[in-house]
């Protein structure tokens, strides 16, 4: 009987001691997520410090009491250190906080201005963040869409290491293209100005000839897909005759470039814009 009592007493004592020791331990859940509340068993009590990548939280705690950290407080994902001072010695433990769900996109669209109908010239890069601006490392689907007028292109990319990207060709039609990166609950929009490309089929004609001057004018200047080349683009008229060369750089105004040159007989006038050559006119001998 004495023996049984001895063993029961020993068992109870051990159980109480184990329980007390467990209560004095720093206990942190291993599945903490940024933006979600967290309960920490602060052991014997004292001052609790939570040292995170971008913040420090301090709490006074009573022995055996659990500490509740709200989601608003626990903002930063990464490696944290929990330290309890006092109440029977210092204790510390490293724990991890995972990023929350993807809710924000940091979207870089390049370039801001691009010629139409060029392959692979537009790039979109989306960095995926949670609501507290932690980079979401887990693969996330990001939808990219590029639209100008009725032309619309869409592409879905899965992020890797927090980043998703696409390259896209510019549309054949000029105008402000809407480039959008989106997650299920968020959309970020950028505007890419798609402008006419180099002129195509550059043509000029003589519109006036009087008092030793000749006025030449281009047809409406357009690129190869029919977009009007923007006003201000330089068109160069060159006249070559027996006295030498005359060059006039004229800007396109209302879609047309015009220049006045000396009316020398047997002169040759040519037109060009950038690397594109247009037609040639011969004066005094027909075209």
């Amino acid at each position: 009987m004495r023996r049984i009592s001895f063993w029961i007493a020993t068992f109870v004592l051990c159980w109480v001691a184990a329980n007390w020791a467990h209560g004095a331990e720093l206990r942190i859940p291993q599945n903490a997520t940024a933006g979600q509340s967290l309960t920490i068993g602060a052991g014997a009590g004292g001052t609790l410090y939570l040292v995170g990548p971008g913040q420090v939280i301090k709490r006074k705690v009573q022995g055996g009491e659990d500490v509740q950290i709200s989601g608003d407080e626990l903002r930063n994902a990464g490696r944290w250190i929990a330290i309890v001072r006092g109440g029977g010695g210092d204790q510390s433990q490293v724990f991890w906080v995972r990023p929350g769900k993807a809710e924000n996109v940091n979207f870089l669209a390049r370039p801001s201005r691009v010629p139409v109908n060029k392959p692979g010239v537009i790039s979109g890069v989306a960095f995926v963040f949670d609501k507290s601006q932690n980079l979401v490392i887990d693969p996330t689907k990001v939808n990219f869409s590029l639209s100008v007028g009725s032309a619309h292109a869409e592409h879905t990319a899965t992020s890797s290491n927090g980043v998703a990207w696409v390259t896209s060709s510019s549309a054949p039609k000029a105008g402000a293209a809407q480039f959008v990166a989106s997650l299920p609950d968020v959309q970020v929009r950028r505007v890419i100005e798609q402008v006419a490309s180099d002129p195509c089929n550059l043509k000029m004609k003589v519109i006036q000839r009087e008092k030793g001057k000749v006025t030449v004018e281009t047809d409406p200047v357009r690129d190869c897909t029919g977009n009007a080349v923007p006003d201000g683009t330089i068109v160069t008229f060159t006249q070559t005759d027996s006295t030498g060369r005359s060059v006039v750089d004229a800007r396109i105004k209302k879609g047309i470039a015009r220049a006045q040159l000396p009316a020398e007989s047997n002169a040759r006038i040519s037109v060009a814009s950038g690397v594109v050559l247009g037609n040639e006119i011969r004066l005094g001998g027909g075209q």
Partner: protein
Amino acid sequence: MRLVRILILTIGIAVAISGGLPLAKRGLSVVRAAVGDSKPEVQLNVTNARPREVEESTQQSIIRDYGRAWQGMGTALANNQMGPLNENFTGFALDKLKQRVKDQQQNGLTTRVIDRGHKLDAVFYSQDGSAIEVRDTATVETQVLEGQTLIHSDEAQVHYYAVLTGAEDRWKVRVLESSEK
């Protein structure tokens, strides 16, 4: 008999050196970290960078500027100063580290980061060359002090994801996040 004595003496000296050297090295690194003058060793692998290849000159700049950023962060956290952060960080990383320094100041804490080196793997380099992301395997010792009292110390290999973007004269760290994986 004399031979045995010499042998014992030699073993004793060897044991003292083997124990003393790492201790002295550790002490030196703590002192260095405290004054913030230790520039960490940084290695960069660019074979996994996509969609653009990382140019040689960019590789050198990343190694230099990422090292500087860690040095600056070490100084900032050890002395609760904002200055070294402004020079090397921008965006979310800057906001978060500034908040950490502010909170440390408020609670009377400082952190010594004893940096034992970084192995960087470039995982993304933007088409226009304006942003790069690296995965860093860093070996760091972290010491948290309350006033002058050391209240936590650990040494670990930690994985970081860092996004750097080009600034006026250097690359600045825009995102710096540690991850368990």
